[in-house]
């Protein structure tokens, strides 16, 4: 499995990339997409919605189950990757290109892990 060094990770299996001006991009990790299996539907928030760290902001449905996606940050949604609504399989194909949302005015964040720490966390699970 692949965990790019430039990203941060959460224990609930989301990845986070900081961008300029207190913005952040969020998606789910390679481990998450692999455990979920083939994704068939995704529900995303709308631009302007508020997200809070530790709370669900989207859900993904695979052939196995529906799961919440937890926001690692508090802020407001400024961009949504609408493409995923029609092609959720992109999350399975390339989880780090298939970003879910971009959040601006990031105020707070959950405990974030580096790639190494996340891999260690997965091994200990």
């Amino acid at each position, binding site marked *: 499995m692949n965990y790019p060094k430039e990203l941060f990770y959460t224990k609930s299996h989301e990845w986070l990339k900081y961008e300029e001006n207190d913005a952040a991009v969020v998606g789910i990790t390679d481990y998450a997409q692999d455990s979920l299996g083939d994704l068939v*539907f995704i529900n995303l928030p709308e631009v302007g919605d508020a997200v809070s760290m530790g709370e669900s902001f989207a859900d993904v449905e695979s052939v196995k189950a529906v799961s919440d996606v937890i926001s690692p940050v508090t802020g407001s949604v400024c961009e949504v990757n609408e493409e995923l609504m029609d092609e959720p399989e992109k999350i399975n194909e390339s989880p780090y290109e298939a970003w879910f949302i971009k959040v601006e005015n990031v105020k707070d964040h959950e405990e974030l892990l580096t790639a190494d720490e996340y891999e260690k966390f997965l091994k200990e699970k």
Partner: protein
Amino acid sequence: MKLIFEKSYQGRGNHIFPSLDVEVGIPESAMRNRKNHLPEISENEIVRHYTELAKRAHGVNTGFYPLGSCTMKHNPKVSERVASNPKFVNIHPLQPIETTEGCREVLKRTEEYLCEITGMDAMTFQPAAGAHGEFTGMLLIKAYHKKKENYDKTEIIVPDSAHGTNPASAVMAGFEIVNIKSDKNGMVDLKELEEKISEKTAGIMLTNPNTVGLFDNNILKITQMVHDAGGLCYYDGANLNAVMGIVRPGDVGFDVTHLNIHKTFSTPHGGGGPGSGPCGCKEFLRQFLPGIRETKNGYEMETETIGNVTGYYGNFLVVVKALAYLLSIGSDGVSLSAKNAVLNANYMMHKLKDIYDVAYDRTCMHEFVLTLEKLKEDTGVSALDISKALLDYGIHPPTMYFPLIVHEALMIEPTETESKEVLNEAILAFRKIYEDALKNPDKALKAPISTPVGRLDEVQAARKPVLRYEFES
């Protein structure tokens, strides 16, 4: 296999009608202007078509069906016979009440027996299925708090292992959901519960035994904690089969319950219905029950009823089957069924746990959960692949990937109606599949090979399902 529409041949039929001796008076405006697309096919071809379909399907009449959490027990044929008695079948809910004595007796006695089993004081048969019963129960809790003017009580506590219908039913009734995590033994985490309980707590929804097939020993403490906060306790009857005749939800602090009588009381699982999910409650909630019921003043609505949740008396014939089941097994049979269900599950678990990883290694109730995480890591063979391989042994796969708190889960519920010989055969199959998966993982990934269809495209089936035949004209 061809669809029945593909077997259709224009002009072919089954009936020879007598010639028309009255004037046809259907006005042009009432005539259909498109073909009605009914298959035209002879009777023996129809019989062969459906027999062929039945041969391709797997049911509890065909083989072992250990679908966890669903209690696929045998439905005694005698119950079907009783329920098909024309005196039950041809009754109408609006016929004069003095002509319905027998049916009213059925409702009254079933209510009495099910209340005795659950420790409740009253029960409604209106809900048409389990989740409908949950929703009704939530409405009772809502009506109770409204009457007490507890307007701040807006939250229902639900454990993370709960059936998905629990939070859905509570939300439908207008509550907000507060999730609590299970501890490492799959039980309600008392510390977490204490933190989540507040003045907003309207109630808690629990199954016991819980969704991983374990009995929560803290149950008295849990219900006490919720009561102390002014909340009510809701018992999801999904797993009652493990404890019926032994533990009564009403005795351990529950105020409201629903029963899945298609599971516990041996009425068929439907295939779309009709179902029945009676909802029972303690005396202090009786006034809110839905529908017309036998009250002190005759047949009428309760004083502060939540209204109707379905028409009339619910799916009455399903209730007849449940009563027939109860009368045929008797009160001793009720607890004996539960004991055998638990014995069968433990027997299977003990015969498998030297090679399969058990998610919670302790005495289980009526079902147990395996986790195939290690097998998947070592060989790439997942819970899904093991399930597919079971099809080649004529066994319906267990429930997979549920509960969500266990990874690569297989949830096995043999039920009490299977013999030791059937269990032994299934145990052999499970063991053989596991050993084969270790030796030759590729073979497991290709299973099943003996079924009419192999691996289906599950992604396409979910995203672009083809559900009906497209006619050319």
